[in-house]
């Protein structure tokens, strides 16, 4: 402070260099500099680097890197059948997970948005898996879903059903990963929906109730349209989340069986850190970057419209 005062007193002759505007700029940049520096080093730099890596044939073990242009993308898009399998798996995972998650979250939120005895108990239960480590969750479910002697199959056997070897058959494994992931994450969307439901004025329902509308009509004609913006945001966030799934797959199936649960995030890890194919893994990372950027842009522009 004293510094700026002395500046001001000495500024009789010429305009002071340290104007309020300049000071704001210096302080602003100073305050954001730790975040900005970290962002440049650990995000923007690496982001540029994957574009360079992706144009090289670089095996980490041999250490030799040669420039190959777009060959890694050609490899991914045309030659490598695994890539299409991975994209198909990621799409199946997202298309299975998102509707199931959103529908269940909405159902739970509608059931739990108004107070009744025990409502907190139910909310607490449905949210508990969200704070649990994905690895811990996957360990327990892998145990429960074992083919022979697994608790779930033993219980099914008691009512006369022979359960499949859940995690050893590609289609069952995919279904198992989707369902256990939904159970883990649905609580998050549930609380977002509850918040949105509680923001809807009660008079709407009451007025409609007086007009003789049934509860289903009230939901379909009043509540559901009012939840539209929330649903859009939830759908996009959940879709992005489905592309991020890694720990769960790593621990439950390891991408198997027969690559049946090999999804994009796991495939990047596998190519980069198990097969050391840095160029190809970087090309995959760029594809993931593009997918998530498009989804983020949609989400941001939706929120803009929402604010306006």
């Amino acid at each position, binding site marked *: 402070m004293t510094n700026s005062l002395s500046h001001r007193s000495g500024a009789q002759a010429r305009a002071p260099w340290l104007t309020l505007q300049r000071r704001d700029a210096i302080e602003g940049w100073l305050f954001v500099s730790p975040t900005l520096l970290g962002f440049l080093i650990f995000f923007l730099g690496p982001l540029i680097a994957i574009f360079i890596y992706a144009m090289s044939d670089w095996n980490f073990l041999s250490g030799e890197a040669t420039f190959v242009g777009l060959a890694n993308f050609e490899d991914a898009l045309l030659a490598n059948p695994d890539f299409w399998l991975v994209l198909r798996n990621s799409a199946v995972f997202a298309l299975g997970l998102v509707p199931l998650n959103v529908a269940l979250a909405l159902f739970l939120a509608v059931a739990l948005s108004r107070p009744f005895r025990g409502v907190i108990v139910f909310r607490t239960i449905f949210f508990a898996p969200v704070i649990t*480590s*994905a690895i811990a969750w996957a360990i327990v479910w892998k145990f429960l879903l074992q083919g022979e002697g697994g608790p779930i199959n033993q219980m099914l056997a008691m009512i006369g059903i022979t359960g499949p070897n859940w995690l050893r058959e590609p289609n069952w494994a995919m279904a198992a990963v989707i369902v256990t992931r939904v159970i883990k994450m649905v609580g998050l969307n549930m609380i977002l929906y509850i918040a949105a439901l509680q923001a809807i004025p009660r008079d709407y329902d009451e007025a409609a109730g007086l007009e003789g509308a049934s509860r289903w009509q009230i939901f379909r004609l009043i509540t559901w349209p009012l939840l539209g913006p929330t649903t859009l945001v939830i759908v996009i966030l959940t879709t992005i989340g489905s592309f991020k799934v890694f*720990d769960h797959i790593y621990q439950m199936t390891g991408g198997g069986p027969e690559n049946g649960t090999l999804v994009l995030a796991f495939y990047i890890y596998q190519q980069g850190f198990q097969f050391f194919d840095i160029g190809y893994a970087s090309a995959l990372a760029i594809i993931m970057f593009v997918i998530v950027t498009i989804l983020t842009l949609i989400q941001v522009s939706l929120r803009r419209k929402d604010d306006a």
Partner: protein
Amino acid sequence: MTRASWNRLAWIMALTLLALPFVFPFLWMVSAGFKSVTEIFGAPNLIPRVWRYENFAEVFTYQPFARQYFNSLYIAGVVTILTLLISSLAGYALARIRFVGAGLIMLLLVTALMMPDEVTIIPNFFFIRWLGLVDTHWPLILLPVFGAQGVVATFLMRQYFLSLPKELEEAAKMDGLSRFGIWWKIAIPMSRPALAAVAIITFLNSWNLFLEPLIFLSSLEKFTLPLALSNFNDSYGLPLWNLQLAATTLAVIPVLIIYLIAQRQIVESFALSGVKG
């Protein structure tokens, strides 16, 4: 009973049925943690016939589990404090100071907002290796603080500062408090709810972090909990189920207890970050 109370009973029954797959894994985890290897695959029973407490002792001899537990705790603590500091500084500037480039900075940060770590993990690995920090805890601290998680925290703080009334800060400015002083003495004490939300989410994220430990750590005594949990295998790579589930119980139950105590606060934090982030 009236129709309304039948109705309510039906709802409660439906919810209880739905709650089973949410509760059952936790119960079975604890139960199996106390069973012997033979009983674990015997007829399914929730209460162990023989309580095998030794599982919990063997967890600590099979791996340096106490050390790994401590690693997770202190790393999550450091990450949380650093994130609080850095994100509230940047968030404050982006909310309150008008300066050239602020818009550009926001635009840049948005690109990182939702990006999975897998996108940048390969170059980050080579950078960390070049710094000689492989098999240390540094990447587990640096990458989350400056990655997507830190950006989410920054936006959350910015949003909260924007919602605060300006008058108090302006009065402090009149009194000659520096910008740094206003941030530390006025803005920070007023933002407890946002700071708590950032702290809770950041701590849990670090506590549950898996990709970075998996890629960077190789010595057992440096492992964090999730990596340690996935490592309870015999020499054929098959899981040692009773030890693994005992260890998982030890890792999960304290978090659940804290969650039960601070349930409202924790749920609200996630709601805040989900809506604003």
